[in-house]
């Protein structure tokens, strides 16, 4: 079966410094794949390159087609979507405006857009309550929900999430990860980059451990959880 998203031998440089060295990664339809690793391992760089924010060498295949030379907007149009660590919301605009802009790429009727908006509101009721509020006034958890909601407005086929739990209270993290798992049931495939390794592996089907810009270990998430090296290094070793 062809992977929905296949990254092959990807190299990413910041100037003369190579941050990602020949990483290969596969994501099948309906799968959640996690990428874990320490700070500076190249996880966020990998996602930025996959969406086209950073130039890269190697192959990026989406649904069997090479997208490595396409711009960010073309990749988004094909159904690839990134929720970055920094969220990149439109802070001075309302929650509703942010969500509507999420569907910008869809070029669909107002009625379809409204239907999708209601689905997002159903998934994130707090966004419905805050619809007229400016995005910059939301709490951390609400911002993450808005970032996810905005991404869902574009009806992505592959959603790449960069540190969705970053800076959030444990209860909110559980809520966010439960929503992420729920997205898979709606047919969205997810590439999850997360420092909270245990939470990431518990939420995913398959995992990659990135160290110094290279894949150190990969395997099914339940297997990785019991891998001694992963356990020692990333799961607290207790």
């Amino acid at each position: 079966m062809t992977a929905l998203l296949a990254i092959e031998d990807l190299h990413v440089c910041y100037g003369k410094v190579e941050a990602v060295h020949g990483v290969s990664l596969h994501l099948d339809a309906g799968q959640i794949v996690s990428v874990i690793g320490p700070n500076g391992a190249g996880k966020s760089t990998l996602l930025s390159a996959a969406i086209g924010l950073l130039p890269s060498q190697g192959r990026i295949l989406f649904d069997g087609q090479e997208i490595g030379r396409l711009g960010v907007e073309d990749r988004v149009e094909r159904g690839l979507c990134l929720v970055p660590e920094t969220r990149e919301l439109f802070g001075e605009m309302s929650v509703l405006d942010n969500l509507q802009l999420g569907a910008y790429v869809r070029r669909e009727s107002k009625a379809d857009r409204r239907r999708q908006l209601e689905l997002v509101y159903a998934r994130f009721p707090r966004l419905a309550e805050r619809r007229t509020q400016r995005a910059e006034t939301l709490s951390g958890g609400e911002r993450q929900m808005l970032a996810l909601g905005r991404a869902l407005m574009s009806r992505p086929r592959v959603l790449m999430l960069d540190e969705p739990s970053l800076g959030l209270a444990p209860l909110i993290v559980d809520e966010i990860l439960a929503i992420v798992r729920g997205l898979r049931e709606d047919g969205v495939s997810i590439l999850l980059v997360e420092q909270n390794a245990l939470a990431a592996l518990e939420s995913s089907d398959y995992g990659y451990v990135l160290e110094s810009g290279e894949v150190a270990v990969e395997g099914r998430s339940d297997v990785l959880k019991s891998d001694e090296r992963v356990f020692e290094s990333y799961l607290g070793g207790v």
Partner: protein
Amino acid sequence: MTWDIALILSVDGVAGAAIYLLAGLGLVLVFSVTRVIFVPFGDIAVFSALTLAYLEAGRWPPTIALVAVLAAITAVKEVVAHLRHGRVAKVPAALGTWLGLPLLACVPAQLLAGQELPPLVDIALTLALVLPIVPLMARLVFHPIAHASTLVLLIASLVMHFLMSGLGLLFFGPEGFRTQPLMRGAVELAPGFLVSAQVLLMVGAAAVLAGLFFLAFERTLVGKALRATAVNRTGAQLVGIRPASTAALTYCAVSLLAGFVGILIAPSTTMYYDSGLIIGLKAFVAAIIGGLSSYPLTALGALAVGMLESFASFWDGALKDVIVFSLLIPALMIRSHFSHHSDDDVEEEEV
């Protein structure tokens, strides 16, 4: 100064403010979406005013040639770029966008120029001719350096101003032109206080255009996309908004605003090929008061500039421009006092 004089000066000030409002909105729009400080705004307004003057006089406006040449150069550049990257399928669309559409705007003017036409037709032809100028020039000049620093973009913008000013002299000559007032007569606003209908038209048109501008930005998805690009460029890309498209749309809107400015100002002010810089600079003062980002503050700035200019010309006509530009000093001091610096900025300064 008596109350009568103060009232007359205030009306003049509001009329001037109407012009600076439109120009200021244009400058803020371009800067917030593309980071370009669009110095040639006033020059485009001058081209609009002089094109209208030529059409009214039954002469062939050289603006037609300018648009045709710009369209041809831009189309060649785009086609070559597509062919070099092997994107042959995109060539027809590029030809249609960068050659077909601008030439379409030239056709009616080419057919009708030299005839005696109703004023509204002259205005429509002028706007149609001015509309493609900024998008075409921006595609040639700013698009290839879109990621350059603001300083580089400013230098390119200054070069464009000098180029437009030189072309203005070449096309229209050194003599000044005024166009026919769009409305004649006066309206009595209060007993014994007459205001020219043309001034009311200027203020009304500016208010309507600014209102439409506001509605487009607040109520339409495309307007929101422009705001989003201004607020967060990366975020905009991540939802599929194309910076090149928003930039093209922005330049079209600015071209149209400059076109209206030229049409509104020309009946009351004699326009020369080099009148644009002073209009642009005064609008820039208004835009600076708005921090090159806030439309309401820019509107207030435009009002301040218009009023100050009007009263300053009464006190000392020779110093009026100096007085208006001096407004920058308190404006910058106030903005500096209230602006927030991020930690990154502080670190950069320390380095």
